[in-house]
């Protein structure tokens, strides 16, 4: 039969070493002790540790039941939140994770974890010479458990260090402009910002082509994208926001496309959603309806007799392509009742067959490719929002993470796979 943990600890280690660990090993402080000893006894008590674990779990929960804001209820009101009680606000319940009592509770849990772990380390050191052969594997488990607990404390030190010496800020850069990094003695220039798409028209990724400039010299080029931050001199830059410059008024350099849809050889009636003048069996589309904050332009064509919609999207980064989606459903929209029959990125000169439909496209100005954008068109200009983070605590946090994973993996894998008989 399986020999479980408590037996492992109590019978194997506990019996052999006398008192390495035993259940109910401590009691709440007795009244004879002086107050400092009592505090120490309280904090090294496993009952206290268990209570604190439960208390942190229960109070963390509170912050997910109420909306949170760094400015508390006042901050929320500023964002248009109308409900809320000043009483709850007085207890910091609209900013639980920064509330003094929560930080104190978390701190107490860490102090309790530290003291309990130190106490157990002391026992291990005292008991070591007396450990028998049979207890050796259990000792590995015990040491691994200590490693995991100390690692957790290393993480906490890293978090504290980061909160004291770290910084987090936003850097908004229009294309072609440079800014000094807050808290640093170097600058970053945004050479180009780009949004790229999947064939179904959804955003694939945002890219910021940046150059690091130190004392007027270009020292490093990097393409920042989501999940691929730039690291430089302890600072990290994350792709965070992206948009089209608000003063952008000129037309985008996209060629018009002629569109015709036939079914069994018969041309179908089409209506443009965005341009009432565009109605008929053959349309010349210029893609004027743009997506907010995106260089993407879209056109939606309704085929009323067939209950179909065509969504065509185009982007200046790929002027020879059209993102084409064919949706079934009377209502315009990609909501509940629309079914996608086709979604792909096709050439502006493509002929696409979807069931009985034949969609023919013709590029009315094929010269308007990537290399051939005429000067008459104003180039679209984008901006990129980069989150700048400096966190000197990260190495400690990562080190602690490794210790926690390894420590606990050893603690729990030995009894499971090794001690099962």
């Amino acid at each position, binding site marked *: 039969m399986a020999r479980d943990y408590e037996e492992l600890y109590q019978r194997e280690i506990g019996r052999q070493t006398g008192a390495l660990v035993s259940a109910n090993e401590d009691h709440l402080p007795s009244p004879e002790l002086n107050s400092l000893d009592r505090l120490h006894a309280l904090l090294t008590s496993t009952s206290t540790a268990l209570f604190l674990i439960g208390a942190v779990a229960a109070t963390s929960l509170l912050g997910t039941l109420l909306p949170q804001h760094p400015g508390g209820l006042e901050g929320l009101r500023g964002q248009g939140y109308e409900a809320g009680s000043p009483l709850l606000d007085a207890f910091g319940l609209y900013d639980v*994770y920064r509330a003094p009592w929560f930080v104190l509770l978390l701190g107490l849990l860490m102090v309790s974890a530290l003291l309990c772990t130190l106490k157990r380390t002391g026992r291990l050191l005292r008991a070591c010479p007396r450990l028998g052969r049979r207890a050796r594997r259990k000792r590995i488990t015990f040491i691994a458990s200590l490693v995991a607990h100390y690692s957790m404390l290393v993480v906490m030190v890293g978090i504290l260090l980061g909160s004291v010496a770290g910084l987090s800020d936003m850097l908004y850069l229009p294309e072609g402009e440079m800014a000094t990094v807050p808290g640093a003695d170097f600058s970053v220039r945004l050479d180009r910002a780009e949004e790229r798409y999947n064939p179904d028209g959804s955003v694939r990724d945002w890219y910021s082509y940046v150059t690091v400039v130190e004392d007027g010299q270009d020292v490093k080029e990097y393409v920042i994208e989501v999940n691929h931050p730039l690291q430089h001199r302890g600072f990290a830059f994350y792709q965070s926001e992206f948009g089209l410059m608000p003063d952008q008024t000129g037309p985008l350099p996209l060629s018009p496309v002629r569109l015709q849809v036939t079914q069994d050889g018969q041309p179908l009636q089409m209506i443009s959603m965005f341009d009432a003048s565009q109605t008929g069996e053959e349309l010349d589309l210029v893609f004027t309806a743009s997506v907010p904050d995106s260089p993407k332009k879209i056109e939606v064509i309704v085929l009323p007799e067939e209950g179909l919609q065509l969504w065509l999207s185009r982007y200046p980064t790929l002027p020879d392509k059209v993102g084409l989606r064919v949706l079934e459903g009377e209502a315009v929209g990609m909501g509940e009742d629309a079914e996608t029959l086709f979604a792909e990125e096709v050439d502006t000169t493509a002929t696409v067959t979807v069931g009985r439909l034949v969609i023919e496209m013709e590029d009315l100005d094929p010269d308007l490719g990537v290399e051939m954008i005429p000067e008459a068109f104003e180039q679209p200009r984008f901006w990129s929002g980069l989150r700048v983070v400096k966190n000197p605590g990260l190495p400690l946090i990562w080190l602690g993470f490794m210790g926690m*994973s390894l420590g606990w993996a050893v603690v729990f894998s030995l*009894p499971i796979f090794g001690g099962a008989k």
Partner: protein
Amino acid sequence: MMNMGLLWAAVGTLGVATLAYLVQFVIGDKEAAERSRRRWAGWLGSVAAIISLVLLTVSVIQFVTIYKRLPLGTFVETALIMAWGFTLVYLAAEVLVERRLRAGLFVLPLPLLLTIYIAVQDWERMVPRHLMPALQSYWLQVHVASAMVAYSSFALSFGLAVMILLSERLPGLAARLPQERSLNAWASKAVALGFVFETIMLLTGSVWAQYAWGRYWGWDPKETWALITWLVYAFYLHARTVRAWKGRRLAWTAVVGFAVVIFTWFGVNWLTEFVKLRSLHTY
């Protein structure tokens, strides 16, 4: 296009397995004929559970061939991988490690419900071909795979905890269940395994968040609930090892732990709607 027939077949076999385990549980074992029927019911349950696992595995493979990625991105995808994981971890414990555990009746209804849920979803509408930029990371795979192992182990410990509570509350049933000592031991092993992977899930999620958003922790509701899960199971393990909890108290802790797991996984999604919190998690 995902073949829903495979998933419905898995619903059928999981249903058969659950029923077989129910029959096995209900039949007494006083007479030789009863014991024989009971053994047959147990075998039928195991075989049906294995077929369920095969069907779910084929569904996962089918997803990968269609979408060119693992089913880890959206809620319905994680439901598929969890149904697979729950069945796999249950079978690993029941068939490979200890056949007499007889936890099938208490664990398999979970993947059964999940499989029904995913079979009635409109995959074409709910599952995007392409994941949003923040999800395009190798950390996603480690993060969700760890969650799968953790939640599957917690599901097993939940089933065992229910058995412990049943045998304490209804002594008449105790004879039909394995010894409580054995149940206690296996429930704790399942929690321990789950805790290791819950830790890895939290830590890899944290590293990934640092890469994607520049912060390793942001008290996002999903993050907070994952931390609560971790704390509840940390409580369980400490209560057991240093305070020698067992039996009913410990079993209730495992039940609460699994309730928190379920809430973390899909309760948070409606909570954020309800409280108007913002969550960066899509599943």
